[in-house]
């Protein structure tokens, strides 16, 4: 397109016009090898015409032949540094070939925010990369590539902080806590428990450590140990809805439905509408005979969650509850919904 516009302003030979038109037709038809041949001829006939080189570069770019696209685009920009679109294309081609540092200036001029973010990330300018990627995400919130690079830049920034803590404050409680969290993520549960306990020795008031320990014990089925840790977290952070929920859930597993109800009601008061807490609360209420309250909570889960595992579980609970209450038709309906959800998930 650039070439066509510029040709209108230039004094050109019929032969040049013929090759330009042939190149454009081939490009439109997707016949890129022919388009390249024609635009090569154009560049040969009009070597001083910047647009000729840029269009050749554009076809190479479209063919993903970045090695040939780069010199053509460079030549075009030498002849006319203001050609629209050429900087962005050159920057993208350079980035694709791994020349991130050189790409940055062209991507800045070309206003390619997303690719600029990637190039900045590649050269280690993480904070600038974060800004550009966040800005790009506004217009493309569901782009997996963008989300991937955003994840990478966040991880890098987090790692920088972690490295700094390890280097400058190696024995600080928070550093030990970080190491414990890294061990948890790596699946080293025994190591994580040791580190978390060490962190607590250094600073018994650290938030989140008892919670993390409780979750490790829970994942190994050690309910009594998990209860102890969740309880400690609720005492330390009485406003933590998550800690209250976890304590309530583990009490339910320990068969103490009465105390489970209290903790789960507290979780619900702290953060109303947490579906996990509502489901656990309903189960605990069933165990204590509070069928009406349980029914309401299961229905709330279904209202809030659509087509999730929690909805499926709520349908199951309602089917059981209604059957116990003798409401066979309601039980059958919930059972059907439960089974439908299961079969859809299994597909």
């Amino acid at each position: 397109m650039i070439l066509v516009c510029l040709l209108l302003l230039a004094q050109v030979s019929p032969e040049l016009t013929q090759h330009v038109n042939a190149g454009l037709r081939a490009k439109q038809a997707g016949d890129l090898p022919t388009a390249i041949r024609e635009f090569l001829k154009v560049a040969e006939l009009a070597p001083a015409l910047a647009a000729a080189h840029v269009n050749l570069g554009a076809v190479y770019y479209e063919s993903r032949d970045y090695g040939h696209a780069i010199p053509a685009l460079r030549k075009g920009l030498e002849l006319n540094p203001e050609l629209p679109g050429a900087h962005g294309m050159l920057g993208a081609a350079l980035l694709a070939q791994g020349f991130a540092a050189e790409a940055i200036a062209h991507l800045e001029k070309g206003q390619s925010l997303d690719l600029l973010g990637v190039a900045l990330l590649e050269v280690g300018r993480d904070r600038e990369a974060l800004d550009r990627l966040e800005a790009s995400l506004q217009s493309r919130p569901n782009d997996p590539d963008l989300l991937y690079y955003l994840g990478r830049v966040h991880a890098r920034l987090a790692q920088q902080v972690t490295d700094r803590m390890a280097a400058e404050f190696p024995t600080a409680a928070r550093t030990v806590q970080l190491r414990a969290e890294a061990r948890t993520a790596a699946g080293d549960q025994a190591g994580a428990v040791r580190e978390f306990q060490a962190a607590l020795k250094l600073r018994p008031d650290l938030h989140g450590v008892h919670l993390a320990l409780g979750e490790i014990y829970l994942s190994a089925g050690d309910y009594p140990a998990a209860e102890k840790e969740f309880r400690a977290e609720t005492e330390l952070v009485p406003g933590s809805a998550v800690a209250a929920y976890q304590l309530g859930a583990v009490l339910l597993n320990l068969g103490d439905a009465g105390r489970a109800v209290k903790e789960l009601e507290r979780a619900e008061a702290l953060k109303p509408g947490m579906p996990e807490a509502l489901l656990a609360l309903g189960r605990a209420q069933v165990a204590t005979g509070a069928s009406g309250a349980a029914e309401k909570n299961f229905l709330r889960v279904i209202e809030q969650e659509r087509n999730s595992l929690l909805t499926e579980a709520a349908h199951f609970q309602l089917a059981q509850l209604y059957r116990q209450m003798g409401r066979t038709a309601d039980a059958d309906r919930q059972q059907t919904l439960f089974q439908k959800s299961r079969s859809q998930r299994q597909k």
Partner: protein
Amino acid sequence: MGLCGLGFGLAQSPFLMSPAGLDFVHRHSPTTQKYLVETMGGGVALLDYNQDGLLDIFLVNGGRINDPVKLPVDFGREVPAYWNRLYRQNADHSFTDVTAAAGLSSGPNSYGMGVAVGDFDNDGFPDLYVTGYGPNALYRNNGRGGFTDVTAAAGVAAGGWSASAGFFDYDRDGSLDLFVTRYLDWSIDRNILCGTPFNAYCRPDKFAPVANVLYRNEGGGRFRDVSSLTGIAAVKGKALGVAFNDYDGDGFPDIFVANDGMEQYLFHNERGQRFKEVAMEAGVAFSDDGRTYAGMGVVFADYDRDGRPDVLVTNLALEKYALYRNEGGGRFRYTSLTTGLAALTARSSGWGVALEDFDNDGWRDVLVAQSHVLDNVAKINSGLRYLEPPLLLRGTGGRFQPVPLTDQAMAGRGLAVGDLDNDGVLDAVITVLGGRPVVMTGAPLIPAGAPPNWLTVKLTGTSSNRDGLGATVRVGDQMSYVTTAGSYLSASDRRVHFGFGRGLGSKGEQEVTVEINWPSGKKQILEHVPVNRLLDVKEPQ
């Protein structure tokens, strides 16, 4: 169990014994290919094959598997190391290997899994049905110390991969029928590798489900496959365990099937004609959070003495053994949480299971053969372990309390219960994958000087099947169902056992009333029955 002939070879724990002569070693042939069958055997049966009054032990072996397997597969069952074994109990309670003399050294080219026991021909001698990956085998007890392979004539080879099996009289015609669970549509020549970065045994969801098989005893030594006719084949499963009881009290035995990694099945017996799968409606298909679990072993017995049979299913670590209390009206309620069972078993993986009164206090206790299915589970979750000690939980009237049984960790699989030395205290045999079986006695639970009272009842049917399988025996508020099935791959003694604690009433009476409901429909009441003895009861003509 008394100590004659027994040694404390395993030492440390007074509960575990090493009876002299019981030298069986289970061969499971583990490979780097992780053929699923390697980790699933083997069964055990307690039966009095020669009717001398002492329980004998039959153990199912695995087989030889090359690494990798060479086709056509040969499990090497003709090699003595891979034989199933029958051990006859001697008068001093030691054991003698009588496998060859009993004619049990040969069998089909199958990888052995489980065993069922029942007197299918009503001749007074218990017969054996051995399951496996490959054809199953029915061995008729000839009453002279020997067995004859009658599989072909009986038409019960099944094929595929069979796991637990059990004899019961579903149509109450007086002849024992046979239910065979089948696990997966799996073949050793279509093995797939699972797990990264190391091989692990595949989860059951990698394979298609298959239908279980119900054989009706037609008499004359022949059975007929009635799986489709009765509706059993209408649902496919991944079955490992099976147990029978009459959960709704209609007089016909129902079937609970423990499925691995999918919903459990409860087949309601429609008056001996058909079966209807009703687990979801009955509340026993899932755990209480609506999740499936790896059902393996199952027992169907009354733990809370309300006269209704409850269900206990073993599964894998983090799933919690599933206990369902029978609430009447065809409904069950999940009670693993409220009984304390969930907290006690959340870290455990269970296979064979018993719900019996090991301490004679009148409440049924839980005994489980334990181990994870994956021998490398610790690499996957460092909080879990492969080998585990067996679990003993004392029933205390609706809740369970742990009893330190042993620290010895093992790969427990099958489990069968019976009073090996007839001393009034139940014993159990637990099989160990790739190892020697473990014999456990409840004797250390019995307080010295003031032993609790007990009664063991042995039934002989006349118009009912000769074993009396399917009869209910009630003493006070205790109810026992006569069956050899249940657990995992195993068959227990058919005699039923009751404990009464130290007193039977306000005056400490030493007599009880025994009420028997026979499968034939006859009701028999025996009054003033002295306790602390073995009671033989013949069905009235």
